[in-house]
């Protein structure tokens, strides 16, 4: 027992400091939420900040240029689309609305030409923003990264 304990290697997580400025309102909201989630103890803010950075990185790192263009186009014409196409399916490719239809089946086939990303969605449909994942769900190990 003693021998096993002695051989046990404890790897300390190396921590770094992130400095930056955010609005007072955002800071207050973040601080409150972090305390609610992780308790009024030392390290609560750091835990919440780490989670926030992880989520942001996950969202940003694999965005292709085409995907970015399509999403920026959507953000620009969102209100217009909502007025003109409510209840219909719309497709956005290369930064433009390229198709619309009453059903998904109408616009789902791959368009002609080289397209690697397209937005297809039902206008005005409310999709859940938070999803609970079941007991089965777990991530595959990412493994080590090469140098």
């Amino acid at each position, binding site marked *: 027992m003693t021998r096993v304990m002695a051989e046990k290697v404890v790897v300390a997580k190396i921590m770094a400091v992130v400095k930056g400025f955010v609005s007072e309102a955002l800071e207050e909201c973040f601080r409150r939420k972090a305390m609610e989630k992780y308790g009024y103890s030392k390290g609560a803010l750091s835990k919440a900040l780490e989670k926030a950075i992880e989520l942001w990185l996950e969202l940003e790192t694999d965005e292709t240029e085409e995907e970015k263009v399509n999403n920026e186009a959507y953000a620009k014409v969102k209100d217009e689309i909502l007025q003109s196409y409510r209840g219909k399916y719309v497709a956005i490719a290369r930064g433009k609305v390229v198709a619309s239809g009453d059903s998904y089946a109408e616009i789902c086939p791959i368009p002609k030409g080289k397209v690697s*990303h397209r937005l297809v969605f039902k206008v005005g449909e409310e999709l859940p*923003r*938070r*999803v609970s994942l079941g007991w089965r769900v777990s991530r595959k190990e990412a493994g080590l990264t090469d140098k």
Partner: protein
Amino acid sequence: MNGIDVPAVGVSILGPTGAFPGKGELLVRVDTGYDGFFLISEGLYKKLRLRLSETPRQLWAIGRSVTGEVFVLRRASMMVEVPKAGLRLEGYGETFKRNEEDLLGLRFLEALRITLDGPSKMTRLL
């Protein structure tokens, strides 16, 4: 309906590349702990080329596992057919990084009547 050890439903997915699988149906596990429509493994998401049918990022969701892990769920529009029930459902598929599971969730079940027959290991569509 299936004769395997878990509740599962046979489906066919209609996405940008057409119907998958081309012949027969894909047996997908039902998980009532997942409250979305269709959770898709990263591999299948790529195979179906669902990046050609994605919803805007503003409409993506944040998923939370029972162990408290939080991650971004990529979301794509698609259609799912349940051949044995003669049903075609418009819905969405979701995936997250390094996900290996294909699951049908509560939102999918809203459209179906099924019974689970434990002793016979059957999921029956009504």
